[in-house]
């Protein structure tokens, strides 16, 4: 076939001076700038573009727009840039673009899967539910793998997407969706107000239906000249932003509308790389004008899905906008007037056209006269009963309708293309998403916007106005009202052919149970399937939809929903609105994951919080672990060390010498005010009134339910000032909980809370030599044991910078936590480390910290606790104040189930084999040979090798654990069970003398 054999010699909005070539299924096809992939293929006579989802029937383009159900292509823009399920009419042709058909093997012309078409008598609606019930054992091994292999459209890309995607928030006074005649008129009206106006349209250029209408005139100008003039006028307004290639796909509360802009897919492949591929807009609009147009409905007749059978308006677009002849001999079947305009345009382009009008001659006399003027033959009062052809339509089978409604003798109209027009469906998707209520309009046989829920108005075809002048007038009025201007304007425009006769499924002489007349093309749902669903008792449209899958494909039934609904209503003999309409949900058209993800990938996937000392740790070989959003040094392996060896060395250094640890991530809250102590009394289980300034105390905090929420050391700096620390992960929720109580329960307390987590870098020096390392850097604080005993705090200077120096320990050793302003953190750390080297100072990470505290039986919130653990459960019942009148969680601690026996309590475990390290989370049973289900006593919460003990140690929550000291229990392992003995939780220095570092 010669190149572009179906390109018309003139016309269209393509640029014939800029040729291009694309590839489809390995062949090269030529086209021009301004073409879409669909128009390029059709210019070259290629109608077969895909295989249907279920029956693998050959399919071609149905629509030229985003409502396309059939021609879904895989588009390849280079490595990693493969994107399935693109609608052929919505992809702009770019030189070198590689495209391919889907859902076929081995080739589009010969597809093995088409065997399903022969099996169609058994592959009816509900087939899966009925067939794969039995035998049950077949489900996992046979049915599900087969269904999964057959399911899905297209192939998901496997490599990472190298493209960039941008996000943008925007605000405007008036957002107009759709730049057809109504949208442009709305923008004209709003522009003069000076208010901020945004006009978004999904197509490559604004103009909508006017772009393919060479006949229409507006105010005496050809419509396309009017579009150009209007765009020039809008360009002159700085307050107007026009976004082509931008689809409004989601309409949320408070006029929050999400749009996706295709930024660079239309650019030459080598130019597009620096730009984002797509941009997700989130627009907050004061007022929204919806001018989203309408979709043409197909006609439902036998074999209405052959390649070459398209929507009539789509033929008109091909001829007028792209200069493409969709065929040489075209039959147009219709129930309405608009198809006559399409026929006239095709005839004007030299294409032979015959019209088959289902309406009786007396009902379409004006249209027939119009056709006669253009030399077009009309078969009025004829129905369509079938089509001929295989990979391309070759004939349309029609028959006259007799006065009694019966069908007369068949005849075949030879043709290579069919246009069908089953009237129009207003695109009310966004209106429905805005939670507006739809109202059925019998005259237009369509749902129209009814009750509004948001500051929004619909204008033009999406509101049921199909006449051009009415669209313009309504659009202008909507724009003016949205912008709050009183200007009124009417437009003079050429008349539009409107009017139709509702027809659900075309009358036929065939057994309706044997023919396949497609309603939903993308999911292969036929009129027969709908009938079966109704017969089997599915009478609500939402049930019919799920049983047959009609309207549930990626096109969300844009071309099929009204036909399905009308047909089901007819079968049930109900008024259409009483059957209901389906709910429209975002997105209006499919949106790429890339657009939703935007820049949140790689380093920007999530913030990674680093401490001021993190760069030092990295330079010294630390291995890191994530702790909430922080990354923390986990351990510091030396050359040749594994984690076990490194942690053992770090632990020994702290017990025998001195270790240095970055504790900067601890949550910190400065609690200030005359009622600060009272506030803490109410938040913590223990008391604070008697804590003297300069002293520290360990605090335990519950939720209202009596379970442990958080813990940490609190330092009293002054009568009215506390430095509260929280766990690393708990910092935000503790502050939020405190603020919540302060603002809602105790607004009378004079207390203010300020997060100072990031104000202070915290350097922990732990071990018998800790004081020796610290002393040279402290000039104004007496570090002596008497002057600064365990659990004290002083404000002074360390390394010459203001510091809060706490003598505290999470290791059981002599320890300090040096708080210095964060910008000084690294310098102070380095100074201490340098000075400590002669004492063998050892940096240690979170793993060693965990081992050291477990040896002392100190809990970690979130490890020993899981939101169901009380203070008594972890052996901290003694901390709970019995004299305070109230504190958060106090009342719950008296709940019967919290004081009853049998609660899981924290104990230590020692395995029989001292080298067996239990799994954290492993279940504990008393007797592994007990009959299944074996009663479970509890689980392991922490488990480590303890260098100080020379063996493994574990902590566990065990039912009645405190009363089981010395008992032997069994712990699940990967291999079976391990025997272990229950003991107390303190494995090292049970007397607790080391932390006080008294001179012996």
């Amino acid at each position, binding site marked *: 076939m010669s190149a572009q054999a179906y390109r018309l010699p003139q016309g269209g909005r393509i640029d014939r001076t800029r040729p291009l070539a694309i590839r489809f299924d390995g062949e090269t096809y030529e086209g021009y700038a301004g073409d879409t992939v669909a128009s390029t293929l059709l210019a070259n006579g290629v109608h077969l573009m895909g295989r249907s989802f279920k029956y693998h029937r050959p399919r071609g383009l149905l629509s030229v727009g985003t409502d396309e159900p059939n021609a879904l292509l895989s588009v390849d823009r280079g490595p990693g840039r493969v994107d399935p399920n693109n609608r052929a009419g919505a992809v702009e042709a770019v030189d070198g673009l590689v495209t391919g058909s889907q859902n076929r093997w081995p080739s589009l012309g010969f597809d093995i899967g088409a065997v399903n078409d022969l099996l169609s008598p058994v592959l009816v609606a509900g087939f899966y539910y009925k067939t794969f019930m039995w035998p049950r054992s077949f489900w996992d091994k046979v049915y599900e793998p087969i269904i999964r292999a057959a399911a899905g459209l297209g192939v998901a890309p496997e490599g990472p997407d190298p493209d*960039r995607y*941008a*996000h*943008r*928030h*925007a*605000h405007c006074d008036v957002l107009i969706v759709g730049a057809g005649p109504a949208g442009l008129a709305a923008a004209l009206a709003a522009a003069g107000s000076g208010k*901020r106006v945004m006009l978004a349209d999904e197509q490559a250029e604004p103009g909508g239906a006017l772009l393919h209408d060479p006949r229409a005139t507006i105010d005496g100008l050809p419509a396309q000249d009017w579009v150009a003039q209007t765009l020039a006028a809008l360009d002159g307004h700085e307050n107007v932003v026009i976004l082509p290639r931008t689809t409004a796909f989601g309409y949320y509360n408070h006029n929050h509308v999400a749009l996706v802009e295709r930024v660079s897919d239309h650019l030459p492949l080598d130019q597009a790389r620096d*730009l*984002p591929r797509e*941009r997700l807009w*989130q627009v*907050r609009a004061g007022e929204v004008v919806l001018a989203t147009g309408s979709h043409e409905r197909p006609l439902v007749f036998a074999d209405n899905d052959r390649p070459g059978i398209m929507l009539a308006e789509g033929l008109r677009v091909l001829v007028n906008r792209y200069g493409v002849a969709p065929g040489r001999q075209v039959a147009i079947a219709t129930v309405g007037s608009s198809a006559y305009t399409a026929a006239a345009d095709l005839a004007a382009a030299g294409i032979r056209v015959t019209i088959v009008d289902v309406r009786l001659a007396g009902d379409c006399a004006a249209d027939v006269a119009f056709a006669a003027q253009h030399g077009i033959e009309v078969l009025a009062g004829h129905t369509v009963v079938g089509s001929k052809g295989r990979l391309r339509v070759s004939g349309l089978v029609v028959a006259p309708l007799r006065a009694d409604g019966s069908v007369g003798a068949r005849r075949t109209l030879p043709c290579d293309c069919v246009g069908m027009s089953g009237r129009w469906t207003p695109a009310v998707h966004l209106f429905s998403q805005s939670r507006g209520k739809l109202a059925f309009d019998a005259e237009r046989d369509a749902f129209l916007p009814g009750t509004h829920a948001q500051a929004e108005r619909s204008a033009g075809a999406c509101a049921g106005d199909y006449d051009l002048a009415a669209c313009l007038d309504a659009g202008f009025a909507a724009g003016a009202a949205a912008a709050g201007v009183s200007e009124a304007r009417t437009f003079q425009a050429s008349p539009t052919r409107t009017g139709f006769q509702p027809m659900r499924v075309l009358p036929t002489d065939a057994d309706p149970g044997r023919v396949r007349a497609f309603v939903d093309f993308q999911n292969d749902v036929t009129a027969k399937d709908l009938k079966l669903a109704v017969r089997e008792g599915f009478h609500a449209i939402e049930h019919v939809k799920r049983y047959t899958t009609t309207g549930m494909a990626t096109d969300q039934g844009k071309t099929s929903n009204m036909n399905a609904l009308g047909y089901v209503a007819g079968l049930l003999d109900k008024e259409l609105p009483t059957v209901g309409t389906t709910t429209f949900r975002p997105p209006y058209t499919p949106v790429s994951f890339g657009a939703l993800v935007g*820049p*949140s990938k790689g*380093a*920007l996937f*999530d*913030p*990674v*919080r*680093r*401490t*001021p000392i993190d760069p030092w740790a990295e330079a010294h070989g630390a291995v890191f672990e994530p702790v909430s*959003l*922080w990354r923390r040094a986990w351990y510091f392996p030396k050359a040749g060390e594994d984690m076990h060896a490194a942690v053992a060395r770090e632990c020994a250094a702290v017990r025998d010498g001195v270790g240095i640890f970055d504790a900067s991530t601890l949550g910190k809250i*400065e609690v*200030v*005010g*005359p009622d600060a102590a009272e506030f803490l009394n109410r938040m913590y289980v223990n008391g604070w009134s008697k804590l003297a300034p300069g002293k520290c105390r360990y605090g335990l905090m519950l939720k209202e339910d009596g379970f442990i929420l958080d813990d940490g050391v609190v330092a009293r700096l002054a009568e009215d000032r506390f430095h509260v620390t929280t766990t690393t992960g708990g910092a935000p929720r503790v502050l939020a909980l405190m603020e919540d109580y302060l603002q809602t329960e105790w607004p009378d307390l*004079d207390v*203010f809370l*300020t*997060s*100072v*987590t*990031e*104000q*202070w870098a915290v350097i922990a020096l732990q071990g018998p030599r800790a004081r020796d390392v610290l002393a*040279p*850097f*402290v*000039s104004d604080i007496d570090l002596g044991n008497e002057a600064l005993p365990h659990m004290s705090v002083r404000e002074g*200077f360390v*390394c*010459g*910078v203001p510091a809060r120096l706490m003598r505290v320990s999470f290791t059981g050793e002599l320890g300090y936590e040096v708080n*210095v*302003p*964060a*910008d*000084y953190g*690294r*310098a*102070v750390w380095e*100074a201490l480390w340098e*000075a400590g080297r002669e004492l063998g100072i050892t940096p240690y990470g979170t793993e060693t910290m965990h081992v050291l505290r477990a040896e002392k039986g100190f809990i970690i919130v979130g490890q020993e606790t899981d939101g169901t653990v009380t203070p008594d459960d972890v052996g901290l019942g003694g901390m709970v104040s019995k004299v305070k009148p109230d504190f958060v969680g106090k009342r719950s601690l008296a709940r019967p189930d919290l004081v009853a026996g049998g609660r899981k309590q924290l104990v230590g475990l020692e395995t029989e084999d001292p080298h067996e390290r239990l799994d954290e989370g492993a279940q504990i049973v008393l007797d592994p040979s007990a009959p299944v289900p074996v009663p479970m006593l509890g689980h392991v919460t922490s488990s480590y090798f303890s260098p100080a003990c020379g063996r493994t140690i574990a902590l566990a929550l065990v039912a009645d654990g405190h009363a089981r000291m010395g008992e032997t229990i069994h712990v699940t392992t990967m291999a079976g069970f391990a025997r272990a003995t229950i003991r107390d939780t303190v494995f090292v220095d049970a007397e607790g003398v080391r932390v006080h570092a008294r001179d012996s």
Partner: protein
Amino acid sequence: MLEIRNRATRAAPFPLAAETIGGVTIAPSPPRTRLSLRLRPLAAAGIGSVAGLVLDGPIGSTSECDGRRALRLGPDEWLLVADADEGDELAARVIGALAGTVHALVDVGHRSCGLLVSGAGAATALSAGCPLDLAPEAFPVGRATRTVLAKTEILLSHLDADTFEVECWRSYADYVRGFLLEAARGL
């Protein structure tokens, strides 16, 4: 006596170099004194101003005096900003002025760091992650507010026509800077 070699020096939380992409320049602000002042609204209205800084302006407003600024972030919250070496003096003046009034003054000078975002596309770059309306009519020069930028909380101030300051907690600085650079590339 502390030896001089043991005195620590201050380090910024991220690289100090400014970067310009797509006409948007992203540069670190110098270290500053930052004091969080908490005060009951009625008390603030009664006192009117401290250290020359007006306290009873509307939420979101900025008061300036001798290079110091007070940003009113909420009904009972102000951020006082001054040069890095003015911290003690400013704190002393505030404490003096508020003697006898219940308040909290907390040093947060190291908690956050600032980025100056400037250029014709500054507001648009910020709009990649900030849902606020940043048009001059809606967010005029002098306005400051706590808001979000993508996945982080920030304090956003409009300094002059094409310059905004973004303050974030220091551990988020790398993320904020990276996000803004990426946003500037996507304009």
